[in-house]
């Protein structure tokens, strides 16, 4: 056990910090969920990142990466949040589909999709949930019926983040119409501008078009765009969900930087807040550190050849709960001004706290509701009966 960075890791941090200081835009980009303009500004940033070969540092060089390990990935994320660089518009691709392609994709699929993902040329959305298949994902009804060298896709997907402006989606379909539940499902990649695809924005509680419904009406996708074996869709999706919950989706740095801002906010108001606030701030710091340490331990284990198992579900519960508590503490410090939004002249200090709080409220729901995570922990980690 050695909790110090090697000289190589330190110089990697140094090099990245310098690059980010030179390239991160001075002003925050407009939201990628509100307008096409904001979305394209984020795509342009992805291209800038890729220009520095920073698109996805853990990927092999041939796919636009640097072949770095997971500790370096964590350092990358730490510096990325430190620099307040733009949120990754392609996170569904980079953090979910990317690792899944790496594990289950054919060499042709990897070459076709990964480099375009790493440089932002193709931005991805996830198309799994349906109106009747939320927590019960195995109830998906959308179909992919084989016709020669193509699948014909039909169905209705929902809660698809970024789909309003994204280029491609990875969807879960029933490829065997006579199958039930977890069997007969396949994972298929399709462009969102394909004939027969209709995307309808869904307005979130914050008023932005953060996700969309996707209607598929006889959409044709080549068999070569199926990821993994036909009928293996469920197990591949569960592996994707493992990446999502286990390591990639929510970097500890995100919360550690939020805590740093929380401490600054607290300092400005320490004289007027209730005495328990200092303890809540301290608690937020501890939880963010716990999460970071846990992820460093997971990264060390994976580097040594370990795998992510059902314990990934504990991560998802932990970060989603700490995120709410952290933002709620900030709102309690802001007090009666917490509700203010631009252009209110007194909204300045609210900064992103209100947006972040609303976003945090979604945390226990997306990426598998926390109740489902608790079932997974109970049944697969603890061995309790179904």
């Amino acid at each position, binding site marked *: 056990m050695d909790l110090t960075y090697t000289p190589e890791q330190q110089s990697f941090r140094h090099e990245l910090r310098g690059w980010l200081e030179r390239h991160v835009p001075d002003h925050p980009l407009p939201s990628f969920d509100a307008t096409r303009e904001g979305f394209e500004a984020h795509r342009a940033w992805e291209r800038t990142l890729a220009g520095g070969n920073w698109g996805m540092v853990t990927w092999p060089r041939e796919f636009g990466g640097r072949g770095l390990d997971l500790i370096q990935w964590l350092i990358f994320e*730490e510096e990325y949040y430190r620099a307040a660089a733009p949120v990754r518009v392609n996170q569904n691709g980079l953090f979910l589909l990317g690792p899944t392609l790496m594990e289950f994709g054919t060499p042709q699929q990897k070459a076709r999709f990964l480099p375009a993902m790493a440089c932002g040329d193709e931005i991805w959305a996830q198309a799994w949930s349906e109106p009747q298949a939320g927590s019960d994902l195995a109830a998906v009804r959308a179909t992919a019926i084989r016709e020669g060298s193509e699948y014909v896709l039909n169905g209705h997907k929902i809660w698809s983040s970024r789909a309003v402006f994204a280029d491609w989606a990875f969807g879960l379909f029933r490829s065997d119409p006579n199958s039930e539940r977890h069997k007969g499902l396949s994972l298929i990649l399709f462009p969102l501008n394909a004939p027969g695809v209709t995307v309808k924005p869904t307005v979130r509680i914050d008023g932005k078009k953060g996700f969309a419904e996707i209607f598929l009406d006889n959409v044709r996708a080549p068999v070569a765009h199926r990821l993994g074996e036909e009928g293996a869709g469920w197990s591949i999706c569960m592996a994707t969900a493992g990446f999502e919950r286990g390591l990639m989706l929510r970097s500890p740095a995100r919360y550690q930087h939020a805590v740093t801002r929380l401490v600054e906010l607290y300092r400005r108001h320490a004289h007027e807040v209730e005495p328990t606030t200092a303890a809540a701030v301290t608690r937020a710091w501890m939880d963010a*550190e*716990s999460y970071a340490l846990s992820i*460093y331990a997971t990264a060390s284990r994976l580097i040594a050849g370990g795998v992510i198992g059902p314990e990934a579900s504990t991560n998802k519960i932990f970060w989603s709960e700490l995120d709410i508590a952290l933002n709620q503490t900030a709102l309690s410090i802001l007090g009666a001004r917490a509700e203010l939004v631009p252009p209110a002249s007194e909204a300045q200090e609210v900064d992103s706290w209100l947006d972040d709080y609303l976003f945090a409220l979604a945390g226990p729901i997306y990426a598998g509701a926390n109740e489902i995570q608790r079932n997974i922990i109970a049944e697969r980690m603890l061995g309790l009966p179904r």
Partner: protein
Amino acid sequence: MDFSFSEEQRMAAESVRQVLNDHCQPAALRNSLAGNGGQDEARWRALLDTGLAGMLLPESAGGLALTEVDFVLIAEACGYYALPEPLVEHAGIAAPLLAAAGAEPTLMERVATGEALLAIGHPINPLVADADRATHLLLHAQDEIHLLPASAVQLKRQESIDPFRRLFSVSWTPNTSSRIAEANTTPALWNATLDRGALFTAAQCLGLAQRAGDLAVAYAKERKQFGKPIGSYQAVKHLLANVQVKIEFARPVVYAAAAEIGNADAMSRARVSHAKLAAAEAADQAVRSALQVHGAMGYSWEVDLHFYLKRVLALTYAWGHPAFHRARVAARVFEQPLGPDHTFAREHSHA
């Protein structure tokens, strides 16, 4: 950067776990309670035979010169089995203090084998644990540390709700020949000892939490109500899943504290305190959830859970009240640099 234990460290802990598994099951605990006030000489002998007593002592003192990282999994195992004998206090906390303060080589050799057994009266704890079986006591008087043979002190037992805990108030008179550390060296020695005490108490709490969780899971698989095992109901599943979440996120803090304790700065002290807080909280949630899952049976003396519950209660306030540890964490949060690039950093010194 490598946040994992070596194969040797894992195997050493496994061999201790094996001894505890053979000698420290609830039935053995109950036997020792009926026979010898909770103590078991065969168990103690078996533990000492593994060479644990001198683990953290330098080789010059007859020890193995291992570190807190080597010992933390062992302390966790001692918690898991609610070991009554003072292995953690002697080998993990008191022996390193005596070695650092300096003692006669002949005594150190006997400490390294466990033949001489130490008890410790640290200023943060009002009472001295296991003082009755100690051959020597490390005690505080004003700004000094004193080493006294058992024959030079008077003990008064202070009974604990934990039937295996042996607490004493100690009456004694300091003298110049008993003094082993003077006012200028005492604070550093006591601070290092407090950190070890808090760290290994945290590790025991982690073990206790997992044991309570395991007992509850086993019971939930077996106990049937409404025609099904109660563990198949979501209300019970979620209670136990929440316990496991608490444990999973206390564990890496305890291990990191073990790795960083030697830095002896504001950052490592905060880590140790965070570890103590997180592990004690996990243990509290675990034992109370386990009690709930056991229902009325859990409230009976017959079911073993209460042994672990009472140890958690005792250890929560030992080696620093949670308020003390929260204050140390707050000092780090409000006075040291924040952000992920400072997670593993040393204390920032003002130039």
